């Protein structure tokens, strides 16, 4: 039992120690969590009427963020594949951060779903054996399974790798490699199943297109690495982690291909909708040009499009890809572009106009924004804590020996 206890003590010590900037950052996150937590208590008391959602638009900000974050979590696989399967050195050290990000993102996903449901205290109805999980019929039931499975898988891999490194033991390849290989289809599956949640609804033609799942994957392979690239640079400045430029450029190049594929699929969708010009077009029109004077989403839709196109060009051209300023700009653009595309611009037009043709123009309320901010803060908090533990252990600066001194 000494081993695990030492590991826990060591981890707690790492988390509690830090500079002023670290404490300020943690205090900032905790303040946001408190601010949003109070809003959530209010929402629990008064119901989801505190949000901007109504019967016409019955999923919105929370589910949009959930969808986006599933993409972020799945994208860890983009780094895991080359890192472990082809043992390509420069990426290998960043892959572990992809997994840490996946854990944080999945926790955020689960929280966004939790705050969206009307009776959260009945979550146990979703538990296998105890509840009545509707498999195989319900895609949401499948989503519960794959998301939790993916979370457990990543936690096991990360904890095992860190634990062995902490104890200065070599890790058992026969144990880790199969798990890592399993995490690749698992990452694809969380995104595919989440796409199918929407895709399977014939009532919503905006989602009922086979191109949805491939587009989910393509855009996830842009947004996830974009966040990672920015995080790496923050880590380079604030910690002893050093990454080779090569690794960063390689990731940026992969993102350019993913974004090209995403834009191509987008074009295919736009062609089909506008050329066939059926009733189904009204959702796309609501998004890009407004419908009957309702134009709330139009600026966001175009902003998302331009962000994606400009970022694609920045990552495609080698000189801008290798320039730190344009690289970061590209990451920000991709992040914003995909955040809009997979968040509000996916969920809301799917429900506007509603199934009987009514246009209810949704805008999020302060309650939703506050709760959303709290969930993102929890995600950042988890990521910060995980990095705080992982970095010194990976760098060999902290181990079981450190406890003895």
């Amino acid at each position, binding site marked *: 039992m000494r081993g695990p206890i030492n590991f826990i003590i060591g981890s707690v010590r790492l988390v509690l120690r830090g500079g002023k900037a670290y404490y300020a950052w943690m205090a900032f996150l905790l303040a946001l969590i408190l601010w949003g937590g109070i809003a959530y208590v209010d929402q629990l008391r008064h119901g989801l009427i505190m949000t901007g959602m109504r019967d016409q638009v019955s999923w919105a900000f929370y589910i949009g963020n959930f969808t986006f974050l599933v993409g972020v979590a799945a994208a860890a696989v983009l780094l895991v594949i080359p890192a472990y399967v082809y043992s390509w050195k420069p990426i290998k050290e960043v892959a572990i951060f992809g997994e840490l990000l996946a854990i944080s993102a999945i926790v955020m996903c689960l929280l966004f779903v939790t705050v969206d449901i009307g009776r959260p205290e009945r979550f*146990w109805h979703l538990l296998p054996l105890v509840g009545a999980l509707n498999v195989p019929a319900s895609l*949401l039931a499948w989503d519960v399974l794959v998301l939790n499975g993916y979370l457990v898988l990543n936690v096991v891999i990360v904890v095992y790798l860190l634990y062995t490194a902490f104890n200065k033991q070599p890790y058992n390849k026969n144990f880790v490699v199969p798990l890592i290989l399993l995490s690749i289809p698992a990452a694809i599956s969380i995104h595919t199943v989440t796409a199918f949640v929407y895709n399977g609804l014939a009532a919503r033609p905006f989602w009922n297109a086979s191109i949805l799942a491939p587009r989910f994957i393509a855009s996830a392979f842009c947004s996830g690495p974009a966040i990672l690239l920015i995080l790496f640079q923050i880590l380079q400045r604030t910690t002893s982690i050093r990454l080779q430029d090569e690794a960063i450029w390689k990731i940026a190049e992969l993102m350019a291909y993913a974004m090209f594929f995403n834009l191509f699929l987008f074009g295919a969708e736009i062609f089909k909708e506008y050329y066939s010009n059926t009733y189904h077009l009204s959702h796309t029109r609501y998004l890009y040009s407004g419908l009957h004077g309702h134009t709330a989403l139009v600026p966001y839709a175009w902003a998302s499009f331009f962000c994606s196109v400009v970022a694609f060009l920045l990552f495609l051209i080698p000189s801008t890809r290798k320039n730190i300023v344009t690289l970061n700009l590209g990451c920000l653009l991709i992040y914003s572009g995909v955040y809009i595309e997979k968040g509000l611009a996916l969920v809301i037009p799917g429900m506007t106009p509603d199934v009987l043709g009514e246009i209810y123009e949704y805008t999020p309320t302060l309650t939703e924004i506050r709760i959303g901010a709290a969930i993102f803060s929890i995600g950042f908090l988890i990521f910060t804590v995980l990095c705080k533990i992982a970095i010194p252990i990976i760098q060999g600066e902290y181990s079981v020996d450190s406890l003895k001194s």
Partner: protein
Amino acid sequence: MSQDYAGKAPAPRVPCDVAHKGAADGGLNRREFLAGAGLTAMSAIATTVAGAAPGFIESMLRRHFKELSPDEVQERLRLLEEEYSSRFGKKVTVAATPPMENVLFGYALDLSRCIGCRRCVYACVHENNQSRDPQIHWIRVLEMAKERGIDLEEADPYYDHDTVPQEDSFYMPVACQQCRNPPCTRVCPVQATWQEPDGIVVIDYDWCIGCRYCMAACPYGARHFNWGNPQIPAAGLNTDMHVLGNRPRVAGVVEKCTFCIQRVRKGRYPACVEICPVGARKFGNLLDENSELRYLMREKRVFVLKEDLNTQPKFYYFYAT
């Protein structure tokens, strides 16, 4: 009024399909134990945080209606009656009237007669104890231009004229289409909604987690969510309730039209059929060839909404004149 929609006396009652699946075991079974142990702590927190009423924990741990034994169903009904009677200060009866044999309920609506008066909307609200604040309506009446025909995109559900019908408009009420192939029940992650043997799609309000996936899946906007705490004035409460129908709901669960399950399983017409001043609404047993419904389907031409989605509604529209 106790008209007989089926043109014959109701068939002898059979035990409710949903009531005899669970085993009548005494004491705690493993599920209850697991659920109870894991949740007691959480429910204590939830009670303090949400300021929930007493009985919150009991209601949180309620089991799925279909898993209850006949005795447990009776126990559940008694519990609900007590709860509602004390809350509203009047005697309430909650029944679990089972489906009748050889009955498949169907509905037909004559678009040439409907005048858009919305009496059905409010009769439904009263009969089925929908929340008055915030307002929930199970029936949505769409006003459409005669010169365009049925065009949902151009329909107006919020028309507000001094008199109806308007000369150049016709009216299309839409509620649950009671699909034979309902997309809403399939998507429910916790099996809280299902189709009964008599064709009525129902919801277990004690089991629904409020994820609203069914609302996304329904092509007819028939499902409604309790966004706030539903308010019903005691004076306006319908005390004749069915456990899967018009009993009062709580915030955070989905509800929908049940063809007035508390009425039709006792051989009465749905409230909207009774109230309609022009006789535009028809109801009956699709399995009975002599029913008015089957007569209409034979003699008139009926159609269903969004037939391309293969939902196969048991709610038909027709033009009698």
